């Protein structure tokens, strides 16, 4: 097995079975529907126009491409339907390096060359994003081949294995035909996905958010810079946007929707499932920079008489995010806040222990109208992880978590 750079292969003369040089390599293509790695066809530029040369009919590649068929058998190209063209679609374009978690530009593509019987097999091995590919492209045809090869061997390669490359395609129809998805990207931490997305052009962001699984998309969207968040949601269809917003933390969703135009917000809310819609639109009523605007309505509240066992059961059934479960809240029959129990105390206690005996003193809470700085002050003073928010009647209405406070503080730095 040896490697061959894409830019070395491009432009090579193509010789047919009769020994005549019929043209030059114009494109190297994959058929992703069949195989994501294997080069399926070369597009040859001949005097009669572009021709498709299937790789099965290539017997050797060594400075020249030797075909085992007559040039008259090569079919004319009719568009590039279903083909992923390495020169047009990959070379010089931006791709996501899933392993390094960043956006990179492709300088060259390394192809692995193998012989199977009398046939050549070409597989995409890795993309070159370092100086080696750059120098090759700069000096190819200018410096003698031998000297260039010597020089290139001195440069340590910077390559990304093909399996860690995530492609971006903005055309939805082509995305389906070329089977471009973001399975690998989706496995990253939402915050890493957010960083990557921020580096892309708006149409590319839209493409990523249309393809990602809703839950992953929601997690990533929460972490994206608010300005970019807004432009992403505006670019998506309302029903797709609604699918993603449903999966977001209600407080983050409300903050985001509050920044959109009223029209867009309404059309997204309309598409949402009733339960989530109610929660989010309830939060939308509050001023964004008050305690109520920062709080989430997803938390675990239990009646005053509950035991540790009940709390663990409630935790098992809880569907919200993990931020709020560090504390359990106790409310009386009228919904008034009666106490809070830290998760740590609860875990150490016996199953039958009444929660009321585990509560944390003093009971710190704030009013829904409290300002950002009042909230931050309470978190700082009492070293809180969560802060319950109450209304005029002292009823528990929501919970602010420390990550919300960090968000506020960071935006003021």
């Amino acid at each position: 097995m040896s490697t061959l750079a894409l830019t070395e292969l491009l432009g090579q003369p193509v010789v047919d079975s009769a020994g005549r040089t019929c043209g030059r390599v114009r494109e190297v293509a994959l058929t992703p529907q069949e195989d994501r790695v294997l080069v399926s066809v070369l597009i040859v530029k001949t005097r009669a126009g572009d021709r498709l040369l299937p790789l099965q009919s290539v017997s050797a590649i060594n400075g020249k491409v030797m075909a085992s068929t007559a040039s008259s058998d090569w079919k004319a190209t009719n568009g590039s339907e279903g083909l992923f063209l390495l020169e047009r679609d990959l070379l010089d374009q931006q791709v996501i390096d899933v392993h390094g978690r960043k956006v990179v530009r492709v300088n060259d593509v390394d192809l692995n060359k193998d012989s199977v019987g009398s046939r050549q097999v070409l597989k995409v091995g890795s993309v070159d994003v370092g100086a080696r590919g750059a120098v090759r492209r700069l000096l190819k045809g200018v410096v003698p081949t031998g000297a260039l090869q010597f020089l290139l061997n001195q440069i340590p390669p910077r390559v990304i294995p093909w399996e860690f490359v995530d492609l971006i395609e903005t055309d939805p129809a082509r995305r389906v035909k070329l089977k471009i998805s973001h399975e690998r990207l989706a496995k990253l931490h939402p915050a890493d996905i957010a960083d990557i997305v921020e580096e892309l052009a708006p149409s590319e962001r839209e493409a990523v958010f249309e393809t990602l699984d809703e839950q992953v998309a929601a997690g990533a969207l929460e972490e994206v810079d608010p300005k970019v968040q807004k432009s992403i949601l505006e670019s998506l269809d309302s029903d797709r946007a609604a699918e993603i917003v449903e999966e977001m933390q209600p407080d983050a969703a409300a903050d985001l929707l509050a920044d959109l135009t009223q029209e867009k917000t309404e059309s997204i809310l309309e598409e949402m499932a009733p339960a989530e819609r109610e929660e989010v639109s309830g939060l939308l009523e509050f001023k964004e920079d008050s305690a109520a605007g920062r709080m989430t309505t997803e938390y675990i509240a239990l009646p005053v008489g509950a035991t540790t066992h009940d709390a663990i059961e409630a935790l098992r059934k809880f569907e919200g995010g993990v931020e709020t479960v560090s504390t359990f809240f106790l409310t009386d029959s009228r919904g008034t806040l009666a106490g809070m129990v830290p998760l740590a105390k609860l875990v150490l206690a016996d199953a039958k222990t009444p929660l009321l005996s585990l509560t944390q003193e003093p009971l710190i809470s704030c009013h829904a109208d409290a300002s950002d700085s009042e909230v931050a002050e309470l978190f700082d003073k009492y070293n809180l992880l969560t802060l319950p928010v109450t209304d005029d009647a002292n009823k528990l209405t929501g919970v602010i978590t420390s990550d919300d406070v960090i968000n506020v503080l960071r935006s003021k730095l």
Partner: protein
Amino acid sequence: MVPARISDFNYSDPRSAFILSSRFAPPCLCIVLMKFWKRWKTRILLSLAVVGPGFITANVDNDAGGIWTYSSAGAQFGHLLLWTMIPITLALIVVQEMTARMGAVTGKGLSDLIREEFGFRITFFMMIGILITNFGNVVAEFAGIAGSLELFGLSKYYTVPICAVIVWLIVVKGQYKSVEKVFLAASFFYITYIVAGVLAKPAWGTAMLATVKPPPASAWREQGYVYMVIGLVGTTIAPWMQFYLQSSIVEKGVTPRQYRASQIDVITGCIFTDVVAWFIIVACAATLYTHGYRNVQDAKDAAQALRPLAGDYAYILFSMGLFNASLFAASILPLSTAYTVCEGLGFESGVGQKFGEAPVFYWLYTILIVTGAGVILIPNLPLVKITILSQVVNGVVLPFVLIFMLLLINKKELMGQYVNSRLFNVIAWATTVVMIGLTIAWFLTLRAQG
């Protein structure tokens, strides 16, 4: 006439208010300014907030290179170059609008687009060209810093290194955005040129006529005329502006739908720039040219243009304006260049990254500042000559950038319905051809002289 005591103060005369406040400054002036600030604060901040990338770019366009070139044009040729302002403005509007449209539609920077559509090798040479051209501009900005502060008797041997360090720190410490507003507010110093132009009592009729009438054929034969025309175009439609504006539009997240607002922003910016340029030329023609100071050699000469406005204090106004413009552009240019080159060639870039994560970006940025400032420290350097040369290089490189822009903006698969209209193509291609023609003519005169 000058009131020495408060009782002498004449309430109806605004001039005496100014004299009074400066005489009893600082407390008096401070109170006046504080009151003014309190009353207008929201309005000023609000208007600065809506000032878009187009207006900022246009303002930076009147940098040291611009001020020197316009001043020299007026001093050396009087009204003979005023006719260039209308075609230049037209071309500037078309070119900047194209840039902004490309940014809004593709969401990508100009060097990204050149790389994606034309491949590595072409991009590489383009970036080398841009690097050299922009380096000349960085030198010009530091020349402006040196020249403006020399008027106060401060030696360039310590002002330039200090300013270089300030510029470097502003960006590396991530403070650029907050400093930008100060620069922007201070760039209203340019209005002094408009006032000076009016106070110099220029021959309005001839100036207006010279603006719309083509110059006599004899003008073209004058020594250095073609050179100055290239310099004027190069300083007004600088190559770096296209890269900078497009990135700013992308960074601001302008979409094709909100694009109308940016269009207005761009056009106002272009017109503002050129109105200021026109007044600089007219002010210099009315003062320097008329009194025979044909050869502007340093800031002291150029400052004379503001004499009608500020008398003996002209140099303060001039030097503040020049200093602000130079420092503003000096903090944008090296950064914009580092971004442009790194994005085109695929290196990590961005002030959000740490030094170790984007070494090429930071090194490029640092080297541009260090060498740009370093050149100025060479003793007896003819600052104005070098500055104008850098603007002529801008003009020579411009057609290459325009060709790439025109090829890109006419690609349907890239721009969709937003490809160039025929009128825009005609104007932009004409600009390209004219600039190539002027460059060839200049080279020919060089050979004839040599």
